[in-house]
């Protein structure tokens, strides 16, 4: 059975671009789920089988850091791996994301090769 990914970004454009980059990088997912903020992402994780999450940080309603914190407190979903995709690159905020369980980060703008380089080893 193939793997499923959840893309979390308040920009529908960016969700499409990330999905396209995954295909261009040769990374095939059986299902690509989408959420526009952390709250929607938690709902998807509670209702679907998701193997990995690619999440933005700056989002309305619930940002990426709060999403990681809330996810870590929910036993059923806390171990699902998360990779951040964001304009944020500062050691403080990326460090906080990693301390809350994020496996790494990809800076926007990005190429399909960069997505493959960071995401590939995690699958």
């Amino acid at each position, binding site marked *: 059975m193939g793997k499923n990914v959840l893309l979390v970004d*308040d*920009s*529908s*454009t*960016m969700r*499409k*671009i990330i999905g*396209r980059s995954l295909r261009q990088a040769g990374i095939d997912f059986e299902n690509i789920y989408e959420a526009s903020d952390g709250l929607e992402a938690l709902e998807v994780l509670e209702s679907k089988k998701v193997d990995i999450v690619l999440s933005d940080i*700056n*989002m*309305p309603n619930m940002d990426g850091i709060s999403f990681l914190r809330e996810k870590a407190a929910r036993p059923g979903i806390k171990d699902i791996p998360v990779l951040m995709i*964001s*304009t*944020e*690159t*500062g050691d403080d905020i990326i460090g906080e994301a990693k301390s809350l369980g994020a496996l790494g980060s990809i*800076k*926007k*703008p*990005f*190429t399909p090769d960069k997505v493959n380089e960071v995401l590939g080893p995690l699958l």
Partner: protein
Amino acid sequence: MIDQAAVGEEIVKGTKDVFSTMLMVELESEEAVLNQRLALQSNLSSMIGLGGGIRGVLAVHCPASVAKAITSTFLGMDVEELDEDVKDAIGEIANMVAGNLKVSLAENGLAIDLAIPTSVVGESFNITGVAKAQRVVVPLRMNGELFWIELMYVVN
């Protein structure tokens, strides 16, 4: 203190990086305009608030034809009008340009925070609201058509 000309150069560099990486398009740039309030012939502007070491706004101003061309190239589909896809796409361009500027300013010891982008459709935008603000407007061309990145800021 921020060197305005240097900020203009960083905006050009960061915007060209966004377009070459995400859209596979090479932009041309013109000389930055400093501290002048220009009536830009824009039909869509995406703005992102800046806080922390500075307060102000970074905006991408596009005529309709450029906004549609950017979105069409970004999404790989035909775009007929200034709809939600276009507002979202130009907002994301503003977000990435501001993100690159944030990295550049951080390397020079100035930490800034970014808000969520907002896009508006209209005509001939003129941003006001920050007293005694510095202003940098960078004209850029995509396939020969002009659009602008504007930074208005006060150093805290």
